[in-house]
């Protein structure tokens, strides 16, 4: 087991390295010079050369990459062009707010999807089965930010039960989850974010449960005279690794989907930071946020693989 954990972690390192190469190159696929945004338009060629030298932009690309990677590893993501704050502070602040959303959205989405899928898998062809099939198709076809807009129209505009956008009432400092006046700002973004993966998770759970149900050992369990509940418990346990894999993937989509959902609700999380960075052409913030979110995704996949192999050692891939 320990050997597998080490091998799996070693395998994740080149991936993380590749991810950082892609993020590093983002600055260079941006049109124009990376310095263009910080330099005044009337700067002389000499000044540009001096600044270039100061920032290390005159060095060959691989050298620049190593320097950049060194900075990143020590937590220095550069300065935000629009706010002049260190990118790392911007990203960590935003990430805390996104985590707050995920803290509620992920358990809701995963438990709801799992329950629906398990129910559909245990009673194939019944009403829950149909709902799951429909919900999965709707889930992959629905633009999640539009779902957010529709929820806002319904709950904030028509009925005014919940606030439309933002995080906390005007002028408030600090977000106190225990106060309804604060917590109600969470409701709509969390629902929007949670609804999208439910269908997919339910469909995958259903498929996994159905597959396990068709295996021989289920018949043995029944033949032994175990109660149906005990049989189902065995089945769900055997379906868990497959479901877990899908959940890991969906966590990534949730992370990515938060870009649009946070933009709709102007929730000051990492996705909103990203969309602000795009509007302001703030490439360092763009780079830092993308790098952080992707590394979180890489780490999630790593954890999912490890947990999966703990539940079921047969599926060790490397």
């Amino acid at each position: 087991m320990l050997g597998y954990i080490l091998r799996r972690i070693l395998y994740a390192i080149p991936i993380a390295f590749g991810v950082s190469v892609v993020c590093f190159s983002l600055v260079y696929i941006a049109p124009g010079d990376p310095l263009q945004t910080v330099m005044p338009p009337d700067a002389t060629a000499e000044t540009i050369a001096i600044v270039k030298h100061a920032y290390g932009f005159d060095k060959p690309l691989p050298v620049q990459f190593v320097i950049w990677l060194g900075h990143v590893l020590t937590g220095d993501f550069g300065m935000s062009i629009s706010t002049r704050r260190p990118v790392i502070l911007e990203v960590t602040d935003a990430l805390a707010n996104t985590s707050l959303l995920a803290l509620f959205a992920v358990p809701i989405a995963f438990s709801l999807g799992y329950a629906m899928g398990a129910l559909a898998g245990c009673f194939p062809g019944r009403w829950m089965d149909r709902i799951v099939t429909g919900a999965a198709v709707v889930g992959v076809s629905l633009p999640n930010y539009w779902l957010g807009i529709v929820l806002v129209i319904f709950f904030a505009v028509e009925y005014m039960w919940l606030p439309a956008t933002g995080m906390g009432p005007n002028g408030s400092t600090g977000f106190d989850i225990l106060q309804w006046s604060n917590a109600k700002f969470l409701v709509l973004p969390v629902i929007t974010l949670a609804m999208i993966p439910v269908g997919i998770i339910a469909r995958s759970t259903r498929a996994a449960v159905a597959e396990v149900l068709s295996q021989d050992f289920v018949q043995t369990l029944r033949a032994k005279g175990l109660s149906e509940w005990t049989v189902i418990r065995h089945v769900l346990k055997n379906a868990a690794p497959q479901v877990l894999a899908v959940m890991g993937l969906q966590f990534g989509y949730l992370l990515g989907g938060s870009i649009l959902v946070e933009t709709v609700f102007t929730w000051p999380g990492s996705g909103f930071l990203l969309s602000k960075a795009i509007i302001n052409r703030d490439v360092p913030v763009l780079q830092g946020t993308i790098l952080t979110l992707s590394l979180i995704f890489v780490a999630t996949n790593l954890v999912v693989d490890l947990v999966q192999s703990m539940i079921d050692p047969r599926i060790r891939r490397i």
Partner: protein
Amino acid sequence: MGDTVMLAERPDVREEQAAPVTKVRGYWQTVGHRLRYDPVTLMFAAIVLLIVLAAVFAPLVAPFDPYKESIIGRLKPLGWRDHLLGTDELGRDMLSRLIYGGRVSLLMGVVPVLIASIVGGALGVIGGFAGGRTNTAIMRTMDVFYAFPSVLLAVAIAGAMGGGIINGMLALTLVFVPPMCRVAETATTQVRSLDFIEAARATGAGTLTIIRYHVLGNVLGPVFVYASSLVSVSILLASGLSFLGLGVRPPTPDWGLMLSTLRQSIYVVPTVCALPGVAIFITSICFNLVSDGLRSAMDVRL
């Protein structure tokens, strides 16, 4: 998989072979036959066709000029005067803009998938057929792109390059190449070890001939089905990009962009503001269901 050899194993086909009157259908005939008796898929395919035709012939279908603004007719509800679906924040007819908006959305939905199928498919076939180091090099590179959630990768590339239709398409293509490559690689690896490839080689067929006549036929099925499922993903991602301001520039009508600009007006005409999303949703779900139908008709497991 997509060859007749395996279809002959299917009990229904064998029955037809046994009967002296009916003739044996080829693979594509079987697929066509199955599709003909799948009313759900046919219905959604018809809707897709309708959306595509409306977008292509937009100037003939649209009741108004999608760019014609009207100061007095701004943000009017459904059915206001002749405007069946109301007007937007500049008084432009919503129905016409939705019809015209389908052009960009469909273009962004189909073109990246098409290019990614060719590029990713080729990479996958090369990797799968060559095996060994070439395969490892290609697939490990793809793994890196897999490490990004797809929305994030699209936003990162389009955001860094500064938006626009071409950049958006490029970003989406890059998002779809890795999964497409993986599908083609899996199919190729499966076929490569089969006996008939060995037999072809024994008869003196060159690598290119084998790929052309024996591998591609088996890879195209999965690639085609997977590509058809990616179209709706592409439409969703593209609309998300333009919602973030990374797609077309105003005043060009585009569903994602319309949602983004109309978002300011949800307190005035909520229903009208939600309409572009309905268009995205309907288009995307129809493509999805057609793709599901194709998958079962072509008997492809991805």
